[in-house]
Structure formats: C-alpha cells, structure tokens
C-alpha cells in the first residue's frame, strides 16, 4: 500500500520568504521520493504562484501569513496555497504576453508546470491548489 504523505508550512506574505518556503517544500518532496526530474517544475511553478500572492493578493502592510499544505500519495502531488488576501475575480488566461513585455508570464508558467490549477475562495480566504501527476514510484 502506498502511503500518503502530508505536511504544512507557513510563510509571511513577503518576497524574501518565498525562496525559504519553496526550499522547504522541495525538501519534503525529496524525502517522499517525488521524482527528481519533476522538482524544477515544482520549484518554478510554486515560486510563481507565491510571487502572485505576495504581489497581488496580500499587498496590505500587515504581512498576512500564507499556508502551504502538501499532500503526496505516490502519484499525485497537491500543493494548496491559502491566503487571506484580495480575491481573484477572474482566473487569468494561461497565455504568453508579447515577446518584449516585461511582465505577465507568471500564470503561463504556473499552468505549464502543473497538470491542474484549481482556485476556490471560501471563508474570506483564497485557496489555490497546484496539482502535479507523477509517475507511480515503486515503494
């Protein structure tokens, strides 16, 4: 029977906290033997998602906390990011901007790195689940 692994961590909604949080997520992934060749996409897509939260959702000076809930069952890795910031009114289209536009690539990268991207809002919180389907590992 393949065990299900779970963990939670929190970070301040601050740009400087993102790298530390992402590194902690990757440590869990390695401990749970998530395939090594998936780790870069996890790092990149998660970084972009946290960037968005810090830049757009949690802009108040009070620096709210973001919760990252991880769950891995040997086939599916779910990263659920929860924050109390501004709601996302319309899911952004996963398109690239014009070549020389400096911004606007974050969501395209997120959608490219994960197989499913699920947004919900309840109890005045945003919940963004980034789901990656992985090859079934021998346990």
């Amino acid at each position, binding site marked *: 029977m393949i065990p299900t692994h779970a963990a939670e961590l929190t970070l301040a909604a601050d740009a400087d906290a*993102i*790298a530390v949080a992402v590194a902690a997520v990757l440590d869990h992934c390695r401990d749970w033997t998530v395939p090594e060749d998936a780790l870069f996409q996890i790092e*990149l897509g998660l970084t972009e998602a946290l960037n968005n939260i810090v830049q757009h959702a949690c802009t108040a000076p009070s620096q709210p906390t973001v919760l990252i809930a991880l769950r891995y069952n040997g086939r599916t890795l779910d990263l659920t990011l929860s924050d109390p910031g501004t709601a996302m009114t319309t899911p952004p289209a996963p398109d690239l901007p014009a*070549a*020389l536009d*400096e911004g606007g690539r974050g969501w395209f990268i997120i959608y490219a790195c994960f197989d499913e991207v699920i947004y919900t809002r309840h109890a005045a919180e945003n919940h963004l689940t980034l789901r990656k389907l992985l090859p079934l590992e021998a346990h």
Partner: protein
Amino acid sequence: MTLQDTSLPPSDADCWTPSGRLVMANADAARRDVLEHLDAAGGRLVLDLSGVSFMDSSGLAVLIAALKAAQGRNGKVVLCGLNTNLRALIELTRLHQVFDIYPDRATAQAQLR
C-alpha cells in the same frame, strides 16, 4: 544574490555576471544594476548567466528590460552560460526566439564586436 563578480579581469567590462537566484525579491536591484552596466558598456552587453542557479519570471523581466534598453540605443544584448533549467525556462516562454544565446562568455563576447 551577488550582482557582480568583481574578480573578473577589466576586459570583461562588457559582461554582466549575476550569481545566485534572480527572482522577485532582488529583481528591482538587478534591473538597476544591468541597466547601469549596459550604459557603462556603451549599449553592448553580454548577460553571463553561468552563475545564476534559478530564475523566475521576474528575472526574465530583467533580461527583457536590458534587451529593450539596448535596442533603444541601437545596441545589443546577448545571453550565455544558461544551465539546463534556465534554458528550459527561456524556451518555455519562447524567449529563445528573442534573445541570441551562446554557450559561453568568449563566444558571446565575439558577437558584440
């Protein structure tokens, strides 16, 4: 992140050599730094990314800012030294269609002359 390796010989004044992570937390400073280097290099600059371990879309924005600034003064910006992951990001976002990319600094510098 270290924005410039000051141990390089003077002849590499046409290179910008960031190191570490090029991400949202340091992108504003990196943008100012690369534009200063571009100006000092007369508008022709190699962005040597061999010391960059990870980059996000904020880092891409820094590269694009440099490219646009160079184009605005009939200059040139080229990239070199991309590791596998940086190369994957550049290709994912189709910026390999926008930037000239070379394997190493010497090859890139030759393109500026």
